[in-house]
């Protein structure tokens, strides 16, 4: 019985998220066609998401790149494979670690703040007020946040990659004793454009998930301040779970795509 309930809840949740996603797409197309897309709102969201997340993303990227080089560098040096360090580290970052870690950081930082903001609007009747002014809440609130998250997660993941490689190169030169040229050449020779693109595609999907889940949790907030707190933590937990689960399928899908079309 409990299992059935769980399955039912999950199906309902999945359905609600899918509906909210489709509504955002609908209102985006509607906005583009009528020329009434809220560009200013979108820009505001993008800069807010970027500014708020950048410090954490920078620290995460830098430390991950540095740690990877330490872990891999000594092993490879013992085997005399120094010239592969940059390649392996950059591939691991680009394909897997940069999108996942950036996704988790942004889920914590932005997913929660979207849920809190919309949740507060819900319980203080601001969303009702929007509706009485013939304004669709999805159009007004979800569309800019959805695209803001989707676009900025790609941008932030690029930053994570770059900063990660900077962190890695500093460690490689100072700790492992590689020259900068060896490290950089190794990246350039081994890292393929499809590694980067695959990782950025993942980031795009994670961004969309964070945006939709944050908004959904906000819209379904009930009760006072306590309800807002629940939605906020709920949004983070749900977004991270979805990111980790979806990542597996994305990885398989991207690998299949690459072997089928690019090799």
């Amino acid at each position: 019985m409990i299992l059935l309930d769980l399955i039912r809840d999950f199906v309902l949740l999945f359905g609600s998220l899918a509906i909210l996603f489709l509504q955002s797409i609908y209102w985006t197309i509607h906005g583009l066609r009528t020329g009434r897309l809220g560009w200013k709102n979108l820009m505001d969201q993008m800069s807010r998401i970027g500014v708020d997340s950048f410090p954490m993303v920078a620290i995460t990227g830098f430390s991950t790149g540095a740690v990877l080089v330490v872990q891999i560098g000594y092993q490879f040096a013992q085997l005399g494979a120094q010239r592969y360090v940059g390649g392996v580290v950059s591939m691991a970052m680009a394909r897997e670690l940069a999108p996942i870690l950036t996704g988790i950081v942004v889920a914590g930082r932005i997913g929660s703040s979207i849920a809190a903001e919309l949740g507060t609007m819900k319980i203080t009747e601001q969303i009702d007020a929007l509706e009485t002014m013939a304004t669709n809440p999805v159009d007004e609130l979800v569309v800019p946040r959805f695209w803001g998250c989707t676009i900025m997660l790609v941008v932030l993941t690029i930053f994570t990659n770059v900063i990660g490689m900077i962190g890695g190169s500093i460690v490689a030169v100072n700790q492992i004793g590689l020259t900068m040229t060896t490290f950089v050449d190794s990246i350039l020779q081994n890292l393929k454009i499809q590694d980067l693109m695959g990782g950025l595609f993942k980031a795009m999907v994670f961004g969309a998930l964070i945006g939709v889940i944050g908004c959904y949790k906000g819209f379904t907030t009930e009760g006072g301040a306590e309800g807002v707190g629940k939605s906020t933590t709920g949004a983070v937990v749900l977004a991270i779970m979805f990111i980790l689960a979806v990542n597996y399928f994305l990885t398989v899908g991207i690998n299949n795509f690459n072997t089928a079309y690019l090799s």
Partner: protein
Amino acid sequence: MIIISNLCKRFGPKEVLRGINLKIYDGESLVILGPSGCGKSVLLKHIIGLLKPDEGQVLIDGEDITKFDQKRLDALRMRMGMLFQSAALFDSLTVEENIAFGLRKHTNLSDLAIHHIVSEKLEMVGLPGANHLMPSELSGGMRKRVGLARAIAMEPEIILYDEPTTGLDPIMTCAIDELHLSLKERLGVTSIVVTHDLNSAYRIGDRLALHYGGRIVAIGTKDEIINSPDPLVQQFIRGEAKGPMTLL
């Protein structure tokens, strides 16, 4: 004309509306009185389509709005304004942006024209020059008045007021009542006002309705209400704790 017939609404096990019947004529101000928690705000939300009833109809100009799709509901809402009990100002926007919201969204007026309208409305509610304040910088009564300015910004034909003067001092209350009367005279606004302030109700109401136990138990002009033999009405307007009306 707005006709509400047999409107029923429950939240879980709680029956809030149990068959509301009301008629509001064009250009009329109807005041709804009733004890706290009886469902007055819930009733207003049905009239603007924010809540869907379990049973019953809300006819506006002969059409049942509870059956409207989003598009028709939006078209209707362009003709309506609502002041929320909590004011419901958008707290990420300034006072000016709040009042200008509908104008920006639904008209092609220039920024300057919108600014003029906003300043005019702010003056009408006694808050000239408050344009650039944030809602968090306002007192409760000021928020109410900004909410009122936002509700009337598009010059709607039908306005729903949820406790427009709660939290205002007696002088400001009187000024808001006069604003209400002048809107009605100048623009022929139809309005439904929920209030707990009897003086204000007598000043602005063409008719007064008493909402109790999920139904409208009495309705009439000021004189009819004051002289009503109904013990529920008498208890309510005299504000007596003892009587047939029990608190929920």
